[in-house]
């Protein structure tokens, strides 16, 4: 901490669950935050710099609240902390005694802090006998599935300073200008562009990243990405541009994939002409990109997560990985393995608050379609897929779910706007016996609480953070100011709850003691005091980090962590799942609610959603500095708008079988005809008829996940009408 006059500068960080993890310098005068600046190298974005408005927002939850109206109505009265904690403990004990621990549903999100937030509640409930949780990463389960089944690991990425070594960068759905994807990524892409490296963007939208970095934009229909990649594979095979030596040495099963691609398997050669009507991309363009990718080596195909958030999204990632291997772009500088993208192992280097084991999951079998691989995410069938949380609450064991859920404990996260099929969510929460919520603001989910507890922001507590995707640094978040009003941290709240629940030894340390221990255990941060003083520890890498370099240099000594020890283009593990929807080689499988679904006669527009530059999911939505930057709107191409008599700014009705919304339009050339877009994280604000006025796109999503677990935020058909 440094001080100048009566102003002290506190090194802290922005720990929200976004693609960055940014160090911040907070100016504090007489206990009040007066400015927030970034750090020179890893520069914070507009969100982190707005944390002051978030900290002092008049709508912060200030005191514990108890519901007085109907659940969801949003009417509360102030109660004491003692009364609030007593009631939560009482309800937890009641539900546990009457129905067992699996009747408690726990979910937490909203922060990527190491100490606070999600770990605090999970530790508490695990010590209490466990709880039911959700599986299926909402952001990127398809990429996890493909990376584990192909490479045996999620550590497939390179640090961003390696982009400069590429000759071609393909941003497939990648939009780091808005989603950050590791702090500093945009600057590395600018440097790549200025070095003359060709950058191509494949995306249904002409994003800020397409505008700033790419010299070529290839618009593609949502859900069709695998078809284009497979047609590129066709071109590369046909023209004999395949890196056969790489395939022979490092991969298994290419011939099986080749048989499918060339048509030997099913009689359909997957030519660019085959892909053209599926993708909306001309055969010529597919051929040109295939040639470019095959011959401009090294080339980085960044197969990001949004295309995978579709029905059969796993196939997109599997196909991208196949392409990266066919061209020998794995494990080399300037290449990219097209997997999940974790690079430097900063995430596993720090543990975090220990959460223990969840007894509800102990001894359970894996769920159907989970990967039998040690690096695969926890596969217990005692968990409920994130798309099915609401359905599980409504249908319970009789509906085939692992538990009869009676209460929900949400530690932030706002699942009403962030999970699928909001209407079902509301019905589900209304039917529960008890809902407890920790929050900072009255979110769409907080309104459904019976007891709502005010949580402090990350400027009011001590914590640390790790970059999302393996940038080589760590941030320490010093506490800048004392907690405002009566707010407390999740860990503090759980510490107070524990004795009321009959739990001993939940927390015997101060926050600082925890962090000191976590840092000491990490082995990668040499000096706790220096780390805390500077607020950042940067690992000096001699050269950019490239995943699988050791495998490529010496496969015998360093096999891939797969059953075969090689990259599995064909996967026996997938074959053994015996599910035609999860084929052992990458295939294009048309999704439900795609353009060819008969439902498209009624709902002809494909709705996609993406992360806005001004929010982290639903967080920051209420920040006045940010609100006007990009008002929540439906983006629609002028062709689709004209056909409906819509002009820019018009209010329209958006609807399908699952939801109705009234929202302003943004008529734009920056989106494909046939596709409409709403930023995710808009609040759910139903009017008296249940029509959403807040712009929450997830009301339109089906409670159906992809067989490999993808949460399908980009698979929904809707219709739009002028109001």
């Amino acid at each position, binding site marked *: 901490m440094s001080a100048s006059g009566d102003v002290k500068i506190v090194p802290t960080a922005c720990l929200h669950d976004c693609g960055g993890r940014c160090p911040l310098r907070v100016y504090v005068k007489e206990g009040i935050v007066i400015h927030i600046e970034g750090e020179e190298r890893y520069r914070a974005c507009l969100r982190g710099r707005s944390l002051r408005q978030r900290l002092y927002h008049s709508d912060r939850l200030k005191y514990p609240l108890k519901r007085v109206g109907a659940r969801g109505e949003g009417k509360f009265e102030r109660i004491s902390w003692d009364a609030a904690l007593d009631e939560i403990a009482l309800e937890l004990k009641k539900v546990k005694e009457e129905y067992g621990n699996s009747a408690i549903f726990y979910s937490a999100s909203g922060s990527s802090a190491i100490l606070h937030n999600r770990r605090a509640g999970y530790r508490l409930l695990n010590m209490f006998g466990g709880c039911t949780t959700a599986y299926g990463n909402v952001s990127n389960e398809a990429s996890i599935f493909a990376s584990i089944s192909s490479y045996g690991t999620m550590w497939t990425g390179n640090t961003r300073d390696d982009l400069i070594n590429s000759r071609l960068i393909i941003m497939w759905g990648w939009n780091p200008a808005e989603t950050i994807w590791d702090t500093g990524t945009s600057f590395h892409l600018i440097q790549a562009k200025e070095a003359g490296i060709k950058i191509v963007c494949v995306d249904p939208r002409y994003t*800020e990243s397409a505008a700033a970095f790419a010299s070529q934009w290839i618009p593609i229909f949502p859900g069709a990405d695998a078809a284009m990649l497979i047609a590129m594979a066709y071109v590369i095979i046909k023209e004999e541009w395949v890196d056969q030596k790489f395939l022979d040495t490092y991969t298994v099963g290419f011939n099986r994939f080749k048989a499918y691609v060339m048509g030997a398997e099913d009689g359909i050669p997957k030519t660019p002409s085959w892909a053209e009507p599926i993708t909306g991309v001309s055969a010529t363009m597919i051929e040109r990109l295939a040639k470019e990718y095959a011959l401009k080596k090294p080339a980085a195909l960044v197969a990001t997560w949004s295309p995978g958030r579709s029905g059969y999204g796993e196939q997109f990632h599997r196909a991208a990985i196949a392409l990266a291997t066919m061209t020998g772009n794995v494990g080399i500088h300037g290449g990219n393995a097209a997997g999940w993208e974790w690079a430097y192992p900063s995430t596993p280097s720090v543990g975090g608050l220990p959460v223990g084991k969840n007894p509800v999951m102990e001894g359970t079998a894996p769920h159907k379609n989970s990967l039998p691989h040690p690096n695969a995410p926890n596969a217990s069938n005692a968990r409920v897929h994130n798309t099915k949380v609401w359905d599980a609450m409504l249908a319970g064991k009789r509906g085939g779910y692992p538990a009869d859920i009676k209460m929900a404990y949400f530690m932030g996260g706002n699942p009403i706007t962030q999970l699928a099929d909001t209407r079902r969510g509301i019905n589900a929460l209304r039917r529960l016996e008890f809902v407890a919520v920790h929050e900072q603001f009255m979110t769409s989910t907080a309104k459904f609480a019976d007891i709502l507890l005010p949580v402090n922001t990350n400027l009011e507590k001590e914590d640390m953070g790790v970059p999302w995707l393996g940038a080589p640094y760590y941030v320490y978040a010093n506490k800048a100011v004392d907690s405002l009003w009566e707010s407390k941290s999740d860990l503090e709240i759980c510490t107070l709850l524990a004795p009321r629940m009959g739990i001993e030894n939940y927390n015997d340390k101060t926050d600082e003691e925890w962090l000191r221990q976590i840092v000491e255990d990490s082995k990668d941060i040499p000096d706790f005091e220096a780390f805390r003083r500077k607020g950042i520890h940067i690992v000096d890498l001699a050269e950019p980090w490239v995943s699988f370099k050791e495998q490529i240099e010496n496969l015998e000594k360093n096999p891939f962590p797969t059953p075969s020890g090689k990259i599995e283009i064909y996967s026996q593990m997938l074959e053994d799942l015996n599910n035609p929807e999860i084929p052992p080689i990458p295939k294009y499988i048309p999704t439900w609610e795609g353009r060819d679904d008969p439902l498209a006669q009624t709902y002809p527009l494909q709705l996609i959603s993406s992360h806005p*530059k001004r929010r982290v999911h639903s967080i920051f939505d209420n920040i006045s500095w940010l609100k006007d*930057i990009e008002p929540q709107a439906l983006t629609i191409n002028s062709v689709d708008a004209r056909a409906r008599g819509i002009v820019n700014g018009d209010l329209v009705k958006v609807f399908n079988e699952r939801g109705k919304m009234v929202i302003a339009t943004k008529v734009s050339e920056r989106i494909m*005809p046939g596709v409409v877009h709403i930023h995710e994280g808009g609040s759910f604000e139903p009017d008296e008829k249940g029509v959403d006025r807040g712009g929450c796109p997830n009301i339109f999503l089906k409670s159906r996940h992809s067989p490999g677990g993808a949460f399908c935020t980009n698979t929904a058909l809707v219709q739009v009408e002028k109001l």
Partner: protein
Amino acid sequence: MQISFYFDQSRCICCHTCNIACKDWHNIQDVKVNWRRITTIEEGVFPNISVASLSLSCCHCEEPACASFCPVGAITKGQENGVILVDTDTCLGKDHCEVCLQACPYDVPQFGAEENSKMQKCNLCLDRTAEGKNPACVDACPVRALDAGPMEDLKAKYGDTKDGIGFSYDTALRPSILIKPRKAEKEGENKDFI
């Protein structure tokens, strides 16, 4: 000497961080008041489109129209540094005047929502530059698209580049800004495929 801004439009990712950093440093809570404004210029029809963004604050013109038209002399240009400042005590306020806003071709003058609010705008973070620091926007830009310093130094560093997409250099006012333009992607371009 003339302290000036440099803006590299070819780098700008339209993230608005510069504006938020400005608002934070100068503690501007009014959402409609933007000392630095980011506009997006979109041209063409799908799929042949080009998009550029422009981040602009006060250009601290060499011949500032705002100052010459201000009826009460509230706007002055610094002799030492060329920075244009507003004396809010003298300014007549938006309910009585706004001549500066009409005079400025770049829509720089800003007025708050309160009654008879006085003109406000970028002061090139004189408090920061006095300490040898960059303006808040410059230090904030994630892609290093902004710079500030004496005009001669900027010209030596970046060349004498004046026009950008959405910005035309006014030869009478001589705005003290260098802009490296984004090249417009033309229809049928992208011929650099092998």
